[in-house]
């Protein structure tokens, strides 16, 4: 199917519509919405048949086209028809023409851009300075570190957004249940660390701490602090109820 090759060529739904208008030799100033809508739908269907992902932007415009088409099919009072019915079409034509302007001018701009690439310039030459002290840089290593981080962040921004990551969201409520369940395996008296043993990151430490506070408040856990400020936990009065 010829569409397969063409899919990547379009810059968006408006670009696609302009292509269809050219291909079908439609008059943009007297746009046949019927033909455009049918062609547009055919194109989107072809994409889906090929199991290509259709970007949401294309579907938004598709919805607009279908809405227009369906409104036409509905019987309406004559005077209303006149108002409602030309409007979305005019709007679309205006958008298409406006977009075409920037598309065309961008070709002219690109020519200048490419010409500019052929013109090479030298970097700034600063005349030799005998006074070395002028080149002393004030600041501490941390300022340097900060600057380096800035450079790295910039480099990071240059890289495409390909990374995906997932975070495990753990609610305090879930953690309370987890802690209650784990009490069975713990001795009569145990340390703070034992409740934290399965935490993998900072957010889990925080959630666990909040869960412990809740459990202590509900007298599910009892706690004591010794002279060395070590915290010990035991089962509270609410345990086992």
């Amino acid at each position, binding site marked *: 199917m010829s569409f397969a090759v063409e899919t990547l060529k379009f810059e968006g739904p408006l670009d696609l519509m302009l292509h269809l208008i050219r291909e079908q030799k439609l008059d943009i100033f007297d746009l046949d919405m019927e033909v455009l809508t049918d062609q547009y739908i055919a194109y989107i269907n072809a994409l889906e048949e090929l199991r290509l992902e259709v970007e949401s*932007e294309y579907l938004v*415009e598709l919805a607009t086209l279908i809405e227009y088409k369906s409104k036409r099919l509905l019987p309406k009072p004559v005077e209303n028809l006149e108002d409602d019915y030309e409007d979305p079409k005019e709007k679309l034509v205006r958008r298409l*023409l406006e977009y075409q*302007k920037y598309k065309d001018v961008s070709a002219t701009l690109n020519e200048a851009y490419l010409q*500019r690439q052929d013109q090479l310039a030298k970097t700034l030459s600063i005349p030799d300075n005998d006074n070395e002290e002028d080149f002393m840089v004030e600041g501490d290593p941390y300022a340097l570190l900060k600057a380096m981080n800035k450079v790295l962040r910039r480099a990071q921004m*240059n890289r495409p957004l390909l990374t995906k990551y997932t975070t495990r969201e753990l609610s305090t409520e879930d953690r309370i249940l987890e802690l209650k369940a784990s009490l069975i395996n713990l001795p009569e008296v145990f340390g703070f660390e034992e409740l934290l043993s399965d935490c993998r990151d900072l957010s889990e430490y925080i959630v666990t701490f909040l869960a412990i506070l809740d459990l202590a408040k509900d007298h599910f856990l009892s706690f004591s602090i010794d002279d060395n400020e070590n915290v010990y936990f035991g089962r509270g009065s609410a345990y086992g109820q």
Partner: protein
Amino acid sequence: MANSYVTAYEMNKKEIERWHKIPSACQRVAIKDDPQVVAEGLLYIVGEDGLRIDQLAMALDTSYENAEVIMENIKDKYNQDNYGIELVAYGESYKFVTKKVVLSYAQRLFNLTKPQALSQSALETLAIIAYKQPITRVEIEELRGVGAEVMLRKLQTRGLIKEAGRSEAPGRPILYEVTKEFLDSFKLYTLDELPDLPAYDNSESENLFE
């Protein structure tokens, strides 16, 4: 003194040439050395950073108009075929660059990396910003019919656009405009030099939209 200077606008091309030839031209500048020779040297030093007319005027202790004439004289001089470099006026400043003929020979000497081309969507986004600036992301998206967030970030990283305050619209969205680097990259001195937008919706469509 400054009032006696003839402005560049008052002079036609012929007058500019004559003005430069007469020895007294140097006297219009407060330094005793040939201002054009000095300007050439300064332009050599600044390289790709370029020299603005007001900077040259300051260095030569002369008027803005005089400095402009000096720049234009140098530009005319290097426009001739017997020079390998030329003076260009991009991004509100003047700079020496090599002529196109030099490029293929430079490639024999150096491993010149091909500079990153701009994608069609990058060009369209830049065009919209350049003609409509300052403009918000949503306005750009409306015009192109596609999301612009990633593209705006890319163009910002490349230094071609910058944030320019916030719109008064609800949510106070960020406004974007093009940078001097954009002007330089597209051989423009100022935005006034942008080519006219094609007018598709004028004569033919006027009756259509009524």
